[in-house]
């Protein structure tokens, strides 16, 4: 195969332009630079990348959840006209495995496949259709093995091991006080289950790898964390990190699903092998196999309390299905173990959180990261306890609410602010929506919506409350830093600030926030946020609700460093005391006597640039009893859901969700509202709709026809009350806001359903079957050979 002679260095279709946002400082709502292009369809996502002479990559995936591979024959595929490369594990020049926490996942499988959809071979062709067809010509000889599809089964001693290290991927054991001697007047027990939710980002995995002609590669990619991708790609390609340059492309949502690699190494392998740019793009179905999902969980709880409603002890046994490979399961297991008891002051607790390998789809990061599953369970338990005590469920929560100075069950002292009781009190005080007459309503305001299933028959109303919390930032000793470079210059006579970080904009608005911070700190209106890439050091992941905090702090610190230099120069040249100086509208201003010098004049053609690495307070791993200062910041949100349920049909309309949340500082109020509403929508999805159904290791509904996301008709209006209690350690006092709304909404909605129906509903998503009281996950299994009605239509 000949190498392309001239290699253009950047794709002809550019990555999103450097966003220029409308003026706005910290605390103001600003218009997003990418807002209009996204709404009008002009925004360039990574799936739009295009380059002259590029090839299309495609992936051969295992149809079996568990099998030995005896041979892979690529000869027929190689002979297909238009095919430029067919690669297997033998063509991976460097490390043949990858993984964020544990490198246990083959870049391309050899000897064994452990989940349905595991990549085995790659092709590159001059047309996507040619690539797809060539995949069919690769013959793989499998010996199909029984899949291990149940986490409990995986835990048993006599179950075959999926990995050399065994099937137990992580166990977190938290001992707090002594549950054995604790005496309770009232005890409630429960078992809860959470199904496998998907991030369901709308822009499927895609990217473009461009060889640089010198052995290295540029990868244009949508991801959450450029540097962890870069490091893994370089390792597997056998290259130095600086030979692999990543550039953030337009990201169509992430929610955790882009923390792991998908086609990053694959496209680079194909590009280096063919010497041509290679684009890879999954379709919707492949996307369901191409990224990790939220961990399904089975959780057993026991709560003990005094007669007057003080928690005495909590016992929890949590079992998570990690699927075939580790992904970020370690950290999810730790999070679940530490947050298992909820934001309550409990003197005694025993928590065992287990994470297992199985042959199910790999699970990893998703918004809420371990806190979502346990919150569903601990909040159901609190309601159960309230019922057993004859107490108001909100009163019970307030009575036990954790507060600064208390200790979490994992030993860490609760840092201020931790306004759990206040959030609940305010929530309770929020006005209820007016109850609308059931008859004569527009169908869209009834369960079932336009499908016309009820005109009020069978409809009951219910109200439910929940409160949840989680950590912001990476935990347990992780070196969780971010890097920012801020450069002040004068262009066209006007001061301009360039902000450069590697923080991935995945829709949350970090690029807007970076500009707001620079504008606030440097008093300059024109801010250019440069495209994120690996030419600067890491910003860490866009996950764990951490980017505003960590990259925000890095940008703030870099701005401060630039400002100090400006002031130093002013002192040198004008003898002004820096203490009284500030920058306003591009002028250095001295307190009391106005403009000292315009920046344009002061800089005189020079630039002032500062590069800053920011680290938050250190965290520490847990000890063998699950004790330690593991987390840096905690974010809390409480929610109230009002639902209407058709008792006979099990269909639901969520009428309203009200929420209180402490955000430290509302950096950009409109973006904050977006995060809260979006988070609630995702929590509603888990409560009522969203589940990847897996049967014997196989996904049954890999499409948006059958993986149902909430629509605008399913999503209720949201009432919110925002608390801004500053965290003294965080920039501007802010708290991460991306995840907390997702955590409390699922249990609040299900609590409301229980209130309306009196049913136990201990599994999410709650299905109509469960509401009407038809037990069992499936009635009668489909008849072999008979293609049923609904199955006919995908």
């Amino acid at each position: 195969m000949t190498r392309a002679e001239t290699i253009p260095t950047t794709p002809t279709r550019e990555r999103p332009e450097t966003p220029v946002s409308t003026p706005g400082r910290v605390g103001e709502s600003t218009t997003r630079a990418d807002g209009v292009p996204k709404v009008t369809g002009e925004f360039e996502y990574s799936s739009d990348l295009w380059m002259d002479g590029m090839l299309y990559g495609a992936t051969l995936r295992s149809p079996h959840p568990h099998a030995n591979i005896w041979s892979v024959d690529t000869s027929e595929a190689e002979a297909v006209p238009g095919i430029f490369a067919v690669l297997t594990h033998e063509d991976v020049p460097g490390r043949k495995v990858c993984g964020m926490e544990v490198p246990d996942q083959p870049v391309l499988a050899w000897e064994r496949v452990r989940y349905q959809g595991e990549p085995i071979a790659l092709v590159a062709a001059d047309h996507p259709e040619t690539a797809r067809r060539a995949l069919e010509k690769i013959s793989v000889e499998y010996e199909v093995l029984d899949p291990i599809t149940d986490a409990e089964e995986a835990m048993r001693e006599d179950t075959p091991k999926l990995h050399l290290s065994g099937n137990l991927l992580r166990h977190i054991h938290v001992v707090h006080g002594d549950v054995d001697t604790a005496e309770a007047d009232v005890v409630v027990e429960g078992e809860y289950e959470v199904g496998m939710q998907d991030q369901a980002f709308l822009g499927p995995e895609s990217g473009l790898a461009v060889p640089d002609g010198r052995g290295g590669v540029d990868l244009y990619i949508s991801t959450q964390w450029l540097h962890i991708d870069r490091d893994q790609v370089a390792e597997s390609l056998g290259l130095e990190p600086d030979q692999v340059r990543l550039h953030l492309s337009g990201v169509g949502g992430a929610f955790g699903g882009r923390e792991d690699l998908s086609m990053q190494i694959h496209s680079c392998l194909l590009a280096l092998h063919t010497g041509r740019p290679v684009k890879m793009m999954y379709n919707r179905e492949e996307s369901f196999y191409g990224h990790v999902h939220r961990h399904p969980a089975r959780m057993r709880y026991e709560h003990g309390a005094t007669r007057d409603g003080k928690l005495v002890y909590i016992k929890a046994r949590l079992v998570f299905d990690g699927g075939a490979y580790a992904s970020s399961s370690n950290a999810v297991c730790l999070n679940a173990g530490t947050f298992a008891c909820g934001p309550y002051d409990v003197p005694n607790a025993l928590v065992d959180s287990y994470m297992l390998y199985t042959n199910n789809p790999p699970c990893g990061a998703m918004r809420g990261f371990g806190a979502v599953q346990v919150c569903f369970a601990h909040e159901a338990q609190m309601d159960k306890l309230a019922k057993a005590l004859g107490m108001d469920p909100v009163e019970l929560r307030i009575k036990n609410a954790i507060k600064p100075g208390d200790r979490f069950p994992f030993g860490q002292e609760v840092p201020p602010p931790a306004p759990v009781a206040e959030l609940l009190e305010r929530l309770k005080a929020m006005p209820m929506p007016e109850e609308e007459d059931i008859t004569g309503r527009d169908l869209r305001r009834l369960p079932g919506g336009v499908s016309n299933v009820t005109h009020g028959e069978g409809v009951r109303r219910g109200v439910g409350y929940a409160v949840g919390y989680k950590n912001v930032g990476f935990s347990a000793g992780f070196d969780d830093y971010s890097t920012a470079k801020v450069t002040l210059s004068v262009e066209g006579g006007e001061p301009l600030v360039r902000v450069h970080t590697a923080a991935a904009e995945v829709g949350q608005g970090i690029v807007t926030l970076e500009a707001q911070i620079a504008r606030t700190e440097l008093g300059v209106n024109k801010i250019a946020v440069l495209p994120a890439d690996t030419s600067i050091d890491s910003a860490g992941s866009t996950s764990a609700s951490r980017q505003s905090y960590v990259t925000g702090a890095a940008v703030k610190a870099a701005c401060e460093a630039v400002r100090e230099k400006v002031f130093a120069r002013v002192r040198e040249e004008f003898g002004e005391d820096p203490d009284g100086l500030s920058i306003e509208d591009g002028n250095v201003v001295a307190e009391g006597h106005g403009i000292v010098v315009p920046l344009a004049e002061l800089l005189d053609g020079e630039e002032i640039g500062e590069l800053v690495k920011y680290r938050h307070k250190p965290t520490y791993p847990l000890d063998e009893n699950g004790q330690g200062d593991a987390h840096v910041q905690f974010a809390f949100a409480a929610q109230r859901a009002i639902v209407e349920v058709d008792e006979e049909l099990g269909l639901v309309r969520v009428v309203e969700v009200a929420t209180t949340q402490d955000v430290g500082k509302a950096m950009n109020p409109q973006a904050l509202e977006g995060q809260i509403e979006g988070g609630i929508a995702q929590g509603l999805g888990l409560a009522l709709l969203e589940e990847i159904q897996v049967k014997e290791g196989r996904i049954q509904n890999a499409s948006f026809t059958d993986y149902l996301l909430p629509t605008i008709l399913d999503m209720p209006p949201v009432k919110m009350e925002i608390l801004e209690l500053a965290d003294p350690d965080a920039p501007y006092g802010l708290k991460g806001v991306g995840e907390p709304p997702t955590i409390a909404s699922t249990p609040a909605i299900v609590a409301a359903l229980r209130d309306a129906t009196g049913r136990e509903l201990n599994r999410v998503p709650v299905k109509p079957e469960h509401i009407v009281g038809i037990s069992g996950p499936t009635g009668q299994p489909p008849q072999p050979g008979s293609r049923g009605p609904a199955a006919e239509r995908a």
Partner: protein
Amino acid sequence: MEFLQPATWREALEAKSAHHEAVPIFGGTDVMVEMNFDRRRPGYVLDLTRVPEIQVWERENGKFRVGAGVTYTRIITDLKNELPALAMASRTVGSPQIRNRGTVGGNLGTSSPAGDALPPLYASDAEVELASVEGIRRVPVGEFVTGPKRNVLRREELIWGFIIPEAEGPQQYAKIGTRNAMVIAVCSFGLALHPARRKVGTCIGSAAPTPVRAKEAEEFIEGVLAEGDLWETRGAISEAALRRFGEMVEMSARPISDVRGTAEYRRRAVGVLARRTLSWAWAEYRDGR
């Protein structure tokens, strides 16, 4: 792949007769999904969107003759009073985009048991008009659909459209989906009262290999209405009779369990829908509508 684009119905029939394997496409909301998923790689695609003849509806002796290319949106706007159940069903289809492109003709072509346009056609004894260069034939919709995604369309034929009597009484359509919009039916139910003929038409959707009429339930309720002189007196149907009607509809369903719902739920839900839709339609009838 070749793309055939006839400008007239005649040309379309000729094209189909020359290329039996050609896949007709109108809204493409089923065809394109199949092609995008690579489930279908047709050698020829026969685009019918340029054929004006099938994009009209007309009255024909108290009946409506509706072309295969009339979209859901047009049915909702043009025929909501004349064909209420079909208009109600059309409102439940997909999203505005899908309703702007999708057609009843395509729904018939696909012949899915979950097709929302089908139960109203069954409940009103509609006929499907099929055509080839040789001529036309009309087939009752219940005979047209023979199984899941199977029908009696011959390889040289196209669907011209369907013929459906104008509503002579209240009609209803109700559909279960776990989501409140944009959802494929878990199960559904269509109902039409025919006061002049003293008949009640029904059809269960998505709870058997094809849409099915609940014949016994129809006969039962017709008996109740006749015995009590209810057509004449416009008196109320007893709660017990409504319940029994629902139970009999349940018994006519032959549902399966799949990712969208269990067989047991489907069965129970069609019973509830049957009872409710009958009560609504009867209430309208009593109000003189």
